[in-house]
């Protein structure tokens, strides 16, 4: 290509087999004008240093694998253009997660949080397949649709100041997902999830920082989900006081 430009990538490296602490390594990469940050990492892997470890797959901002810290901000590296950065680009693993190696972080803790919110349709009586699809109006779909767009890229956990202090905090994506199911007209599990959300380290631990929604690459707005979930958990609890029949325990 004509206007080949070079950029320096300062990449955080860590191999638990040999390193006590993470270090950085610089790579000079000839970049194409249309490249995303991920393209440069793949160039390093393919042509400069095959020992660099990072996750990626779809390269179209939907599989959620390639979240990293780019110049200090959580980014989906396949979506963010290199042209928005200067001559030096720093790439590090997402903060607030244990690092496995180089740019790869540990997700098992998140997977547990994810499962904790019961992210599935809960019904007192399951509908038979023979009864066909349930009806759901476009308006009912609209109620929860954008909260169902989360790709689990973890940028919101990396940005969340509460997660930074309390790693056990249920966190934005998991709360948004639980809330998504509670808002679904086909679901009857809001009561169960409200009880989960009234537990320690869940919705009320949120400090309204809104960082999660700012970094979300899919405009899911998890901060709105957390706020709505808080309100629902409170109303549900208050209703339980007024109507003892529905009170828990």
């Amino acid at each position, binding site marked *: *290509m004509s206007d080949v430009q070079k950029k320096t990538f300062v990449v955080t490296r860590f*191999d*638990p*087999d*040999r390193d006590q602490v993470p270090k950085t390594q610089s790579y000079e990469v000839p970049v194409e004008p*249309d490249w995303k940050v991920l393209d440069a990492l793949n160039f390093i*892997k*393919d*042509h400069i240093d*095959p*020992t660099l*470890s*990072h*996750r*990626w*797959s*779809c*390269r*179209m*901002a*939907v*599989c*959620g*694998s390639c979240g990293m810290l780019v110049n200090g901000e959580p980014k989906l590296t396949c*979506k963010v253009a290199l042209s928005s950065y200067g001559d030096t680009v720093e790439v590090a693993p997402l903060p607030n997660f244990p690092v*496995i*190696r*180089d740019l*790869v972080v540990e*997700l098992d803790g998140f*997977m547990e949080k*994810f*499962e904790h919110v019961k*992210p*599935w*349709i809960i019904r007192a009586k*399951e*509908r038979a*397949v*023979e009864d*066909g*699809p*349930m*009806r*759901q*109006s*476009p308006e*009912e*779909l609209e109620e*929860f*649709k954008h909260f*169902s*767009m989360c*790709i*689990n890229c973890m940028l919101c956990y990396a940005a969340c100041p509460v997660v930074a202090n309390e790693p056990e905090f249920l966190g934005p994506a998991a709360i948004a*997902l639980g809330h998504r*199911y509670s808002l*679904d007209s*086909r*679901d009857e599990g809001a009561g169960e999830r409200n009880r989960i959300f009234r537990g320690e380290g869940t919705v009320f631990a949120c400090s309204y920082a809104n960082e999660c929604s700012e970094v979300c690459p899919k405009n899911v707005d998890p901060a709105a989900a957390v706020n709505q979930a808080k309100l629902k958990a409170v109303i549900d609890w208050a209703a339980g006081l007024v109507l003892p029949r529905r009170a828990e325990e």
Partner: protein
Amino acid sequence: MTEVLRHDVVIVGGGAAGLRAAIAAVEADPGISVALVSKVYPMRSHTVSAEGGAAAVARDDDSFEMHGYDTVKGSDFLGDQDVIQYFVEQAPPELTRLEHWGCPWSRNADGTVATRAFGGMTTKRTWYAADKVGFHMLHTLFQHSMRFDRIVRYDEQFVTKLLVEDGAVRGVAALDIRQGEVRAILGRAVILATGGAGKCFPFTTNGNIKTGDGMALAYREGVALKDMEFVQYHPTGLPGTGILITEATRGEGGRLFNARGERFLETKPEYGVGSKLELGPRDMISRAIFQEIRAGNGIQGTFGEYVHLDLTHLGRELLEKRLPFVLELARTYAGVDPVTQPIPIRPVVHYMMGGVDTDIDGATELAGLYAVGECAAHSMNGANRLGSNSLTECLVFGARAGRHAVGHAKDSGDGSEDPLRRQVEEEAARIDGLRGRAKGSEKLTQVRDEMTQAMESGCGVYREQASMRSATETLAQLRRRCADVALEDRSRVFNTEIVAALELVNMIDVAETVAVAALQRRESRGAHACSEFPGRNDREFLHHSLVYYEPAGPRFDKKDVALGRWEPEERKY
């Protein structure tokens, strides 16, 4: 000491087909224990990238007969008709199950599920959730699967070998990518659900993980790969990246134009799409675009020539509602806004019609081994798959294979563990020897690039005898050179270089079967367009292709097509 884990059913792959199989297995018998082994976290599986929809009869003006006929005709009469009949009948209940599990299907005003038009389908039967259908189906299945404690996940575990003893599969050897250990995951039935092999080609819609792993695992244990010559080029990928722009764009009314502003599918009847125009089948539209470019009617761009997909007449409101992902992709990856500008597109490798040879239950000729989804050929897609049939296929045959695998597991004994343990120890030693293998004169990326180039020049949209032959020769050489690739990464922890090296061997095995099968088929049918033999030849080639692994080189064989309901006829639209 090698760790040995034991389950009843082992599923390799956590995309739509694998997850559906897992759920069906535990539903068939709540006491059954299922291992779901994936080289990525399941929500990263490539199902996530499917956009346009999933087909199932839903409207009063539709019927199983029509869906069946469309699929048979789309397959250029190479699909097995009993399999297709079962598929169309099971499609509506399967999509209904997904609805009950929370899939956010788009809706009509009355609350019923909305359907859209798709290529080669006579009526609107493609269910959709805007244009992120694969994403929503995958997440719905994955989240629903979490209800079942008996589905035990092994995330980021790369299966490198099937464990076979006494003529039956008994489990898998899996490399734990995070720890570097190889362990045995035993099961009395194994279901392969690893998806396609688009990364055998340089220009593909497929994600980085689509390296034909399951196909290669089965092939190396003596199971045939079937109909591998049929590689689907999707007509509309973004130049450069190959990112998919869904067929739903045309289902919603999108049009294709060449550099002269000519709607070539309308002005040139020789492309064979008739009044379907942009909703013709994928093989025909990809060839039409290719010919336009070859005739000098393409538009010159940084990444070669392309044509235009125009959506501007559809209006912002419809695009934002039905095709929001297309807007995001075109703006982010092509720098154009489809509301006001046409999208540059060109045909791109998308899907393997072929795969592991199975029967209607997903069972292979190796006892206990099943295959489902894109890695399998049941065969319902024949020589050309219709868009939106494959997501449904993952559900219909995933569920069926899941149930049958449970039946098989219950009827089979555990046998002795010792020979399996030995196999895994050998496999662990092999992988240890590979890790950081500094000696070797070949570069992994170089061999990989040469493989993809050979596939593009030999097995592209149009194929010639000489280039196919040369591809088979190149691939045979690359297989040998692959054994001499130098690896630098010595770490046991998250060593992606060794995974890439193992994937490369898988891709070369699969690529070789594509080239070998293509060379044998001296006719043009579906996605296989052979320049020297431009017509379909039912007298000699109305059969499935089988390729078997032999140490000396692939062995070719054939198999009858199940006909009986729809007679082969000229494929005209």
